[in-house]
């Protein structure tokens, strides 16, 4: 099982890395690139903790092979902050206490990022649907909904 070289952009940075074919994108992000903000909980696509965006689209990185990153643009939670300025979604999660333990938070925020990119003014049902693949055991979701609504208004949604 040979390592193969792949090239991709992660959080805006061009990256070249040699990787074994049986590594998942999640493992590569966490272990090789040391970006541990992306979390692993179920490892089977069931919880959304590992959500990252590939070319703007949210996916479960635990179900993607690292090899598939080749030629893609990947965004993880670490890539949201721009020159020390938080993304409005991050601001909103802070101000509305959209978290408790925080383990679901990176995935939750990445799903929100994808939602608001696609639909800056989501209604309640659209918000729920957008994070239906992201389990949170702590908050009962209420304050997450509030955070997302606030983020939507922060970015000029309404």
């Amino acid at each position, binding site marked *: 099982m040979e390592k193969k070289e792949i090239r991709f952009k992660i959080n805006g940075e061009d990256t070249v890395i040699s990787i074994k074919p*049986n590594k998942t994108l999640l493992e590569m992000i966490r272990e090789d690139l040391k970006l541990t903000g992306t979390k692993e909980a179920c490892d089977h696509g069931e919880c959304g903790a590992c959500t990252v965006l590939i070319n703007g689209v949210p996916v479960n990185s635990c*179900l993607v092979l690292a090899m598939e990153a080749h030629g893609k643009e990947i965004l993880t939670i670490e890539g949201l902050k721009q020159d020390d300025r938080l993304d409005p979604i991050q601001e909103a999660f802070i101000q509305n206490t959209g978290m408790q333990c925080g383990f679901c938070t990176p995935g939750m925020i990445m799903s929100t990022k994808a939602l608001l990119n696609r639909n800056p003014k989501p209604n309640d049902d659209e918000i729920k649907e957008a994070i239906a693949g992201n389990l949170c055991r702590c908050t009962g979701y209420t304050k997450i909904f509030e955070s997302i609504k606030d983020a939507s208004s922060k970015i000029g949604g309404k």
Partner: protein
Amino acid sequence: MVIFYRRLPKFEYIKPESQNMLFEILSDNKNCSVYAGGTDLIPKLKKRLIKPPDVLIDLKGLNELDYIKIEGGTLKIGALSTIYSVATSKIVIEKFNILSQAAKSIAAFQIQNRGTIVGNICNAVPSADSAPALLVLNAKLNIKKKDGSRKVNIDEFFIGPNKTVLDKDEIVTEVEISEVPSSFKGIYYKLSTRGKMDLATVGVAVLLGSDNGRFSDIRIGLGAVAPTPIRAKRAEELLKGEKINKELINNAARIASDESSPIDDHRASATYRKIMVETLVKRAICRLTEVG
């Protein structure tokens, strides 16, 4: 021996850039698996539910298979079309709405963005949500291998849980659905415990054409209630050509339930599933025919 694997088994990874290359590999390499979204295959590999292949073949290099298009009224969905793209495709929503309903009901966005409709079918679990819809749409699957191709009707495609008519060296390249008269209406009901991110305990698809108060055409597809997704043909026969009325619908629903052969498992009992087939078939037909 119980081991909770967190790592994938060893395999080589190949991403062919052309179908020729793909079929070459498929025809001479013995132990290989193809995959598209990987949402079924990767978890199975992780859990060691299947024997790891020596070579894993990523179909996503075949960009030409990523399309949803209409050709002469016929809908064509390429093997790389994701569930999300099918769920949100304008053509599908307008002309083959029941398929979009089924696609929308699958998991959540992260899975829909990766998983494909063709993968959903090829994985061939009884609860695959797109299957009942594709069954009632009389979908055909275009299958290719190194030196040949064939077309298989979806109702002949499944042969058992996780089993299809596909040979090791074949892949499905396309789902093809002939034009459905614009007066036809369809409903896909997915019954599950949670509102989202859940597998169907029962899936019911009904496609109805009516004419002057009669069932001009009626097709009933059932998921998760038999070793494969099935059509409830006897129930359909009972209705076809008949005048739309409540009693007949009730009878048809009962027959559809008889046609199902569900099992008890950790998701639901066979008894409940049978009753639900009757309930949901009845509900779907009543709603489509607006019978009280």
